[in-house]
C-alpha cells in the first residue's frame, strides 16, 4: 500500500488514482462547517488564515474529548458535501487534500482538477479504530467552537481511500458500477 506524508506536493496529489488505498502520515488540520465559514470571512476581508493552506490537507472531523493518557478521543470523518460551497475558495489558496466521507459536487471536482488536489475517504463511523492512527492533537484556533475548533493532528498511517483523484475520477461511481457489473 502506498504511504504518503502530509503536507502533500502537487506531484503527490497527481500520482494518486481513485480507488487506491493509502496510508497517510504527517500533519493535517481539522476544520468543519463553522471553521470553513470563518476562513471564508477572513479571505473576504483580505486577512491571513490561521494556517497557510499551501500543500495542506484538511480533515473534516470533530473528535470526542481526549481521555487521560491518550493523544485523542474517537475520531472519524464528517459528511464532506456540507463543505462544498466553501471548498473551491480554499483550493485556490493552495489546499492540496481533503479527508471526509461521501460524494462531492461537480464544482469541487472541477476546482480539484484545476488546482491539482485530491479527496480522500476515511471510513465513516470507524472512529475508535482510527484514533489509534493519531499520535498528537493541538488546538490551533477558535477554541470557542468546541468540537469544531481547528486542530493540528499528527497522523501515523491513517488508512484512507482515494475517493476523487486530481483527474476527477470518482471511486464512488466506479465502485458502485463495478459491483453492479459483477452482481449481474
Amino acid at each position: 500500500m502506498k504511504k504518503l506524508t502530509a503536507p502533500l506536493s502537487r506531484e503527490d496529489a497527481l500520482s494518486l488514482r481513485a480507488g487506491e488505498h493509502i496510508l497517510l502520515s504527517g500533519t493535517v488540520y481539522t476544520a468543519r462547517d463553522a471553521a470553513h465559514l470563518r476562513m471564508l470571512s477572513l479571505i473576504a476581508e483580505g486577512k491571513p488564515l490561521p494556517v497557510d493552506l499551501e500543500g495542506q490537507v484538511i480533515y473534516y472531523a470533530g473528535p470526542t474529548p481526549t481521555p487521560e493518557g491518550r493523544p485523542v478521543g474517537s475520531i472519524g470523518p464528517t459528511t464532506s458535501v456540507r463543505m462544498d460551497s466553501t471548498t473551491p475558495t480554499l483550493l485556490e489558496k493552495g489546499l492540496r487534500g481533503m479527508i471526509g466521507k461521501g460524494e462531492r459536487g461537480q464544482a469541487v471536482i472541477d476546482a480539484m482538477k484545476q488546482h491539482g488536489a485530491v479527496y480522500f475517504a476515511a471510513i465513516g463511523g470507524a472512529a475508535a479504530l482510527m484514533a489509534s492512527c493519531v499520535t498528537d492533537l493541538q488546538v490551533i484556533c477558535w477554541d470557542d467552537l468546541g468540537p469544531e475548533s481547528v486542530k493540528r493532528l499528527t497522523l501515523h498511517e491513517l488508512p484512507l481511500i482515494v475517493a476523487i483523484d486530481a483527474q476527477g475520477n470518482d471511486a464512488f461511481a466506479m465502485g458502485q458500477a463495478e459491483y453492479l457489473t459483477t452482481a449481474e
Partner: protein
Amino acid sequence: MREISAALITETVARLCVEANRNLPEDVCAALHQAASSEPFVPARDILDILVRNEGIARRENMPICQDTGMAIVFADVGQEVHIVGDFEAAVHEGVRRGYVDGLLRKSVVADPLRRVNTGDNTPAIIHTRLVPGDKVTLTVAPKGFGSENMSRLAMLTPAAGVEGVKAFVLETVRLAGANPCPPMVLGVGIGGDFEQVAEMAKRALMVPLNESNPDPSYADLEQELLAAVNQTGIGPQGLGGKTTCLGLHILQKPTHIAGLPVAVNVSCHVTRHATEVL
C-alpha cells in the same frame, strides 16, 4: 402510588448516554457480522471488517464507537401510577449533561439554529414522553448523529400514490443519501398518522430489533421487499459499491386521514445506537 426521584432519572439517563455510545446493540452487531461474512464484493467486505473491528475496540477500550455521539434522543414511557418527585424534564437534561461531560462524549448541540453557539454540554435532549399503564418508567437513550439524520425525509403522499408511492419514496431517499449517512444504513419508515406523528414513528422504527419484523404479515413482506430493493442499489458500505447498503429496515404504521398518506424515512448509520433501562 410509586415514587421515583428525579435524581434517579438523572443518574439513569447519564449512564445510558455513555453505554449507548460505547456498546453497539447486540442485534446491530450481529447484523454487521452477518453482512461482513456474506458480502460478495471484496472491497466492501474489507470495509465491513473494519467496522466490525471498530465496534470491538470501542467496547473493549471504553471509547465512543463514532465521534459523532449525537443529539441525545430520550424516549420515556412513564407509568401513570408513578409519581416523579422533582422536575422530570430538567432531570433528563441534567442526565444528558452529566453523561456527555463526564463520559467524554462530543458536545454537538448549538443553542440556536441560526446563531449557532455550542451549549458545551450537549443539552438540551429531545424528549418523547408517553403516559402508559403501570408503575414503571422505561427510559431509552438513542443518540443520533446528523450525518444520517440530515439524509432523512418526509412526504405527504396522496392516497392514489399507494404502496408503490411509498416504495418509490423510500428508494429515492436512499439514492439521495448515497454515501453520506455512513452506509450500511438502518432505515426506519413511518407510514400514516399526520405530519409530526409519522416522523416520530420513523425514528421509533430504528429501535425495533433488526431480527424482528412487523407483526402484520403484509407490512413484514413490504419490509423485506424494500430491504432487498435497497440492497440492489449497489451503493454498498461507505458508498464505495457492494451488496450491503442496508442492515435492516422496519416500518411502523398508524391510522391516517382519508385524504392523506404521510410517509417518513429516518436514515441511520451502521452505528444505530440505543440503550434502555426500566425503573
